[in-house]
């Protein structure tokens, strides 16, 4: 009995030590390669980390499916939005000529772009699927400037790791990692289904992240902030979603 338990204890001890150091090394490597999401703490951290890490390894460069014009949902469904405040209405009355998209943070040349300027930039049109976490979805054509082009114009600094984007609705802000920010299908969208982007769908400007659920495609965006850490923003969980109990990474 004693011989058995001593051997067992040594084996168990070795296994635990190996397991713990293995985990520590794995965590180090994951941190280094950006495989840990900002909401990795807490009860559901392990599941979120596994999802985000697995998807970053499998889907870093994959392109969202694009559809034929005949597959566009008619009519598309505009989800309910919180009442738009006075500042929005003033800009809307002026035909959005004073709408600005500010870009700041870790960039060489902070800037503010008008809609006319954004429309003069290279345009990408794509017909993609937008799925809400609730379970419904629609297919629409999105027209806009690749976010990568804007980041290139302002000169993103090499240490940049995330882009934060804010809505004119001040409690709605999100962030994505550079894999999604530089992805060719991530658009600062100013048009939809052949026309301008309707207010009901986030007009005049919406960030479209087609490889993530709808709530990452923030409507009415006014500011982009490039950063190397999400810790100083809000509660440090990455965006408004985890603060409201939803996952930061919504590629699921």
């Amino acid at each position: 009995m004693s011989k058995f338990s001593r051997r067992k204890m040594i084996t168990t001890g070795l296994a635990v030590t190996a397991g713990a150091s293995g985990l520590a090394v794995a965590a180090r490597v994951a941190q280094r390669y950006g495989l840990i999401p900002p909401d990795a703490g807490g009860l559901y951290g392990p599941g979120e980390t596994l999802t985000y890490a697995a998807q970053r390894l499998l889907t870093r460069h994959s392109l969202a499916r694009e559809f034929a014009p005949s597959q566009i949902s008619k009519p598309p469904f505009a989800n309910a939005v919180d009442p738009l405040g006075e500042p929005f209405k003033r800009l809307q009355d002026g035909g959005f000529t004073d709408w600005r998209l500010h870009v700041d943070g870790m960039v060489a040349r902070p800037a503010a772009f008008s809609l006319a300027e954004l429309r003069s930039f290279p345009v990408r049109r794509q017909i993609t699927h937008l799925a809400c976490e609730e379970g419904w979805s629609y297919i629409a054509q999105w027209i806009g400037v690749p976010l990568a082009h804007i980041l290139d114009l302002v000169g993103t600094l090499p240490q940049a790791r995330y882009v934060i984007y804010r809505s004119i609705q001040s409690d709605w802000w999100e962030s994505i990692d550079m894999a999604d920010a530089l992805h060719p299908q991530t658009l600062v969208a100013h048009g939809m289904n052949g026309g301008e982007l309707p207010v009901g769908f986030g007009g005049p400007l919406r960030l479209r992240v087609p490889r993530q659920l709808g709530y990452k495609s923030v409507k009415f965006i006014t500011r982009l902030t490039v950063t190397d850490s999400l810790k100083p923003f809000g509660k440090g969980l990455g965006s408004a979603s985890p603060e409201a109990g939803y996952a930061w990474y919504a590629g699921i």
Partner: protein
Amino acid sequence: MTHWITTLCFLALLVSGVEILISHPRFYWGEAGNILTPPLFKLPIPASRATVPTGYGYVLPDQNGWSRYLHFQAAWLAVLTGLLYFAFGLFTGHFRQNLLPARADLSWQAFWTVVAKHLRFQSASEADARSYNVIQRLTYLFVIFVLFPLVIWTGLAMSPAIASAFPAAVAILGGQQSARTIHFFVSVLLVVFLLVHIVMVGLAGFRSRMRAMIIGRPATNLEPR
């Protein structure tokens, strides 16, 4: 051991799955579907979102945040446990010995013998208590090798990022809304399996079966009935 982790995960997935479902209790076929699209069918229950027309005058509380976190975490644990069970099952010959029906048992006659035994409410003999009959074997094989893989596949097919990396996995199912609909039906089948499974264990003698499940063998003397 893997059984009880799976049980825990299954219950977590069920509760969180129902919670996610009630935010949009409508089902579609194809790629896209929303409240402006005619549904394949809808469940006659209230929803947790005001945008869904349900005919009920009230909206249930929204619990999607933690439900989604829990659903995916439980899914990870269930899949990792499943892989362990699968490796173990192959390695020890559990699938071959205990689950694969013997060739002789695959005849209709053998099949009806089992059915007749059940219809006459005969209790299990000593030999039956230690092994699975042909219907049990086929059911377990169907659950392990058809329903579980299908529920994982349809679940992953709903993910926009997975769909971007493996578009064929979505196309074969008929689209992302089709995947959601199939996910729902497979879950219903799994719940039916769970209920029948519990009733059967109850009929087979709850204490003796629990003893077998927890410590790995039935009591030497079967409980008198």
